[in-house]
């Protein structure tokens, strides 16, 4: 897979253009952030004009939206969902909980710093980020895609061991199938 704009092939430009304008999100409603998505998608803010659309299953989706704090239990599911997605795929961390734990900084069951476990392309700050911020985050992602820099999935694949190590550190009982890609 070529993500780079610098290859200069017209095909890649078209592909990246299409990718940029067609972001299908699998909204993994983990925390309170999920409540910000309905206003984002509906008439008031209408994210669909940027080609952003909800999709039902990870197989069809491009963007994994982590909307809030991640319990260890949830992380396991999120990892699985992420690994079921098809390349190219992007992760957006949503709200301060995903960045540094937010108000759950001392919780016994919440992971802080999502990027230790999944390659986050864009973080959206705030607690909670308003829909404007969400859309701005998406636009940021679009810019990255167009520039060919949204290569989190690639990084994930290349440094799978490091991610796995972190993941296994948190998830005590690793019962998942290993996706060796």
């Amino acid at each position, binding site marked *: 897979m070529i993500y780079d704009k610098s290859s200069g092939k017209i095909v890649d430009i078209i592909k990246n253009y299409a990718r940029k304008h067609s972001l299908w999100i699998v909204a993994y409603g983990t925390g309170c952030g999920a409540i910000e998505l309905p206003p984002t998608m509906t008439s008031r803010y209408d994210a669909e004009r940027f080609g952003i659309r909800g999709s039902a299953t990870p197989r069809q989706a491009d963007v994994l939206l982590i909307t809030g704090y991640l319990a*260890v*239990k949830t992380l*396991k599911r999120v990892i699985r969902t992420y690994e079921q997605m098809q390349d190219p795929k992007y992760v957006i*961390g949503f709200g301060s909980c995903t*960045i*540094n*734990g937010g108000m759950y*900084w*001392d*919780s*016994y*069951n*919440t*992971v*802080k*710093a999502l*990027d*230790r476990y999944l*390659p*986050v*392309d*864009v*973080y959206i*700050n705030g607690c909670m980020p308003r829909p404007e911020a969400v859309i701005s985050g998406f636009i940021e992602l679009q810019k990255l895609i167009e520039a060919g820099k949204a290569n*989190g999935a690639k*990084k994930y694949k290349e*440094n799978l061991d*490091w991610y796995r190590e*972190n993941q296994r*550190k*948190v*998830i*005590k*009982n690793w019962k998942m199938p290993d996706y060796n890609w």
Partner: protein
Amino acid sequence: MKTQNINIEKEIATEIQNTFHTAEVNIKRNKRIEVKLRNDLIPPFLSYAKNYLTFNHLAHFSCVDWIEQNEFELVYIIYSYEKGVIVLAKTRIDREKAEFVTTRHLWYQAETYERELHEMFGINFKGNDRLNEFILEDWEGIPPYRRDFDTVKYATDNFYTRPGREDAKDVRENVTKINKEEIPEFAKEYSVRSLK
């Protein structure tokens, strides 16, 4: 129209006191009665309250960790729709050997509360056969709601903590103290980008 009995708490309290002589019955405030009982009297009391005093709603069931007395206090909050009165039935059990009997036969929803208490406090409810993994997954060690469980220590031991957070001094101190891990180059990029 039903006439409002203003002395209903007193009536109930008296009735309870007359039935359970060892109980310590206090009227905490309007429509709220506290009943402290010996732990072996809790099942008969709840049954009595449910069947004779029409307290047929288990509103809540929780636990307080009295680590100083080495005891758990179990609190059953039951409610009567007819009388509009809440009764808090409290009892103490041994903290070391945390065991109690189930009240699932009275209220089926008690099962869920008991599972939670089992997981969070490590109380074993005899007669409840569904005390399996509930909210936490693969939890090892001290149940997290016990007061001798150090949550900050656990969090710092297990989860990576990002440096920063200048806005919150107390937190920052903690964080800077504990963060010793190296971040690889490629990962730093994202961290930096998101923090700027």
